[in-house]
């Protein structure tokens, strides 16, 4: 990856700040929990247990904090509303990343807490500070029972949430993660039953909360940690209500590369370019919601998503829509073989740029669908800069389908804001498998009246064999269209050199060639919008920082889904599925 763990965690200002604050809070809470137990004279009987009770109480307080925080990044609707106001704090869709950090921390402190309690109960039994044996506390009292259940649930949830498992079988992850409901119930009731007390026996009272705070001296942390849980539950109910509003699948287009484009009509669904949604097809599964990037522009009369048949849910969907494996594989083969644009290899009546339309007029009507969303950061501020550099890496190209279309619509209306030029970069390993996006690019490219407004730059990073090299060389020379992408734009091979790309752009802008008629008094704003793996993001960001001068200001922002940025390999995921297989 080019950088060490130390560089990544400590030499990046933002990450360093996160580490200091996040882990600082943890250690502070641990120390405070330890101290408040060790110095509490009312609990002196328990303090006879020494370090183990101080440790368990400290770790318990940390776990209360983590238990409260674990659901906060999952409050998607709240985040969507709050994010625009707090953009400086949360630059992009990094909520899942934060969710994972809380989970890792929770696993560590659960280990500390449990280990300390094993020692506590051992010594309680030995000294009989309370008249009970260790196994009574472990398996007959609320704290012990819920604790063991919480650990078991974590064992199952963490293991199925491993990225390999999510990729193999999203359903296993999806269903297992709903154990969170029981996990949260267990968490809120973990310290009930007057567990921390100054008396030998618990002091219960007949009214809520059924214990007397005079003798029950726990942190009562459930009073705080329950709120994210309640809000999350409310969100899930609200999502269910919203999903039930009238939705109709109006059309399905099967693209030659095998991607199915679902065009859905839902008047109550409002979104902006660059966002994503959840989709459910009750006929296939009444519980599963699958995330996809929105590929239509807000101006389109429909909401579209592009789906490739790669997992079992998407296969079932293809089967149901009448775009089964045979149909698609024949089309995919034709597309992958690089069929010529105009005629020749015509398989099933579809050349590479064409698609088959399924509108449900036949024997079987199209299935009912439900959509939920939109989620994610919008990309509206492309209209506040003079030059927008849109960079999609591999799978990360999906949000730009919507953004490019949206720009095109606004260009037609003459409503581009300050936007003067768009540079679109697409870095990917193998272009042919992204056929549907190519056809979209073809449309956008063909519709350009001004040749200088939109420039498409495609970089193919895979190694190419000698045969393929000659094939390209022979086909490319003198042809109107690029042999690989069928665009007028030529494909470039290898990885882009961001430093020189930005450097040249800066020079061209400063010389006044890039944006003719620019007033040199004003500072030109060049905004970069990126979706793709984190390593690449870092390289591009560095290039933008290095190129910024007094005349040109380069900014950098991430758009769309970044969930897989930690994995680093965009080829792991098919193009149109952004979160799950």
């Amino acid at each position, binding site marked *: 990856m080019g950088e060490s763990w130390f560089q990544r965690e400590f030499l990046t200002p933002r990450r360093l700040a996160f580490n200091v604050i996040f882990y600082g809070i943890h250690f502070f809470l641990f120390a405070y929990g330890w101290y408040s137990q060790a110095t509490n004279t009312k609990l002196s009987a328990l303090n006879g247990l020494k370090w183990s009770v101080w440790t368990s109480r400290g770790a318990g307080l940390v776990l209360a904090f983590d238990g409260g925080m674990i659901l906060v990044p999952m409050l998607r609707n709240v985040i969507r509303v709050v994010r625009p106001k707090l953009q400086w704090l949360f630059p992009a869709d990094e909520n899942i990343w934060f969710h994972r950090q809380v989970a890792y921390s929770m696993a560590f402190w659960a*280990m500390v807490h449990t*280990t300390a309690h*094993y*020692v506590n109960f*051992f010594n309680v*039994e*030995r*000294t*009989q500070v309370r*008249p009970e*044996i*260790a*196994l009574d506390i*472990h398996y007959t009292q609320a704290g012990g029972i819920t604790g*063991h259940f919480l*650990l*078991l649930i974590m*064992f199952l949830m*963490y*293991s*199925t949430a*491993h990225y*390999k*498992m999510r990729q*193999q*079988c*999203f*359903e*296993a992850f999806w269903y297992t993660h709903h154990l969170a409901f029981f996990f949260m119930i267990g968490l809120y009731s973990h310290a009930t039953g007057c567990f921390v007390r100054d008396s030998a026996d618990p002091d219960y009272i007949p009214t809520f909360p059924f214990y007397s705070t005079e003798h029950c001296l726990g942190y009562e942390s459930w009073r705080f940690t329950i709120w994210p849980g309640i809000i999350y539950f409310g969100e899930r109910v609200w999502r269910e209500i919203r999903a039930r509003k009238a939705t109709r699948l109006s059309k399905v287009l099967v693209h030659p590369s095998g991607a199915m484009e679902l065009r859905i009509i839902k008047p109550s669904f409002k979104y902006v370019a660059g966002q994503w949604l959840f989709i459910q097809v009750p006929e296939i599964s009444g519980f599963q919601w699958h995330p996809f990037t929105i590929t239509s522009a807000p101006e389109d009369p429909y909401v579209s998503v592009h789906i490739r048949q790669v*997992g*079992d849910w998407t296969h079932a969907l293809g089967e149901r829509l009448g775009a089964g494996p045979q149909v698609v594989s024949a089309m995919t083969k034709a597309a992958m073989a690089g069929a010529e644009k105009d005629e020749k290899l015509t398989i099933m009546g579809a050349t590479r740029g064409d698609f088959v339309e399924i509108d449900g007029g036949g024997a079987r009507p199209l299935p009912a669908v439900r959509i939920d969303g939109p989620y994610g950061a919008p990309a509206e501020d492309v209209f506040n800069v003079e030059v927008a550099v849109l960079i999609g890496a591999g799978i990360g190209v999906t949000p730009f389908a919507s953004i490019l279309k949206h720009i095109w619509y606004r260009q037609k209306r003459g409503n581009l804001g300050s936007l003067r030029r768009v540079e679109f970069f697409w870095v990917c390993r193998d272009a042919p498998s992204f056929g549907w996006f190519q056809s979209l690019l073809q449309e956008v490219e063909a519709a350009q009246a001004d040749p200088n407004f939109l420039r498409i730059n495609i970089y193919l990073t895979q*190694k*190419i*064999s000698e045969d393929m090299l000659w094939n390209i060389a022979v086909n490319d020379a003198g042809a109107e269209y690029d042999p690989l992408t069928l665009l007028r734009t030529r494909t470039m091979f290898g990885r882009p050199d961001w430093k020189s790309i930005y450097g040249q752009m800066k020079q061209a802008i400063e010389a006044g060639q890039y944006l003719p008629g620019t007033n040199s008094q004003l500072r030109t704003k060049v905004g970069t919008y990126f979706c793709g793996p984190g390593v690449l993001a870092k390289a591009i960001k560095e290039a933008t920082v290095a190129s910024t001068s007094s005349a040109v200001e380069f900014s950098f922002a991430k758009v769309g889904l970044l969930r897989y940025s930690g994995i680093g390999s965009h080829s792991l995921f098919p193009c149109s599925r952004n979160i799950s297989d």
Partner: protein
Amino acid sequence: MGNLIWHEYARLLTITSSVYTIWAAFWGIFFRKFFWDFVGGIVRAPGGLQPSKSNAVFITLIVKAPIIQLFAMLLAFAILAMEVPLPQLKGSSFHRNFVVRIPMLLLQAFLTILFYQGTNASLWSMISAACYARAVVLGEVMKEAKDNRGKGGRA
């Protein structure tokens, strides 16, 4: 359930269970207690549970000397050596065999349930063994590791 590759899932569970076993056995050496000592035992204050005479053999192996804890720890290390895997074991028929893991995990479950700290490790080991059993029933095999990796310059 979908395309879940059970042996890959079971591997994650097994690593977790075995690490837990090592940790539990480590603490079991310092705080020695026979888990089943309440069977026929009497509680004394102070002093705690006094196990019955019929459990004497377990008291010898767990409390007087932490034999079972040490065995559990060794076994857990052996399982980890298979799962992580140790370079010497990698690709061997032993490493690629799922059936042999099931008795190892069940033995780990049996050893850990005998001492006080090991109950969760025991339950988790049984779950891991069940997942490996599922992999065996489905006839899964370990994918051949790709040997051609890292040979650059031959594009």
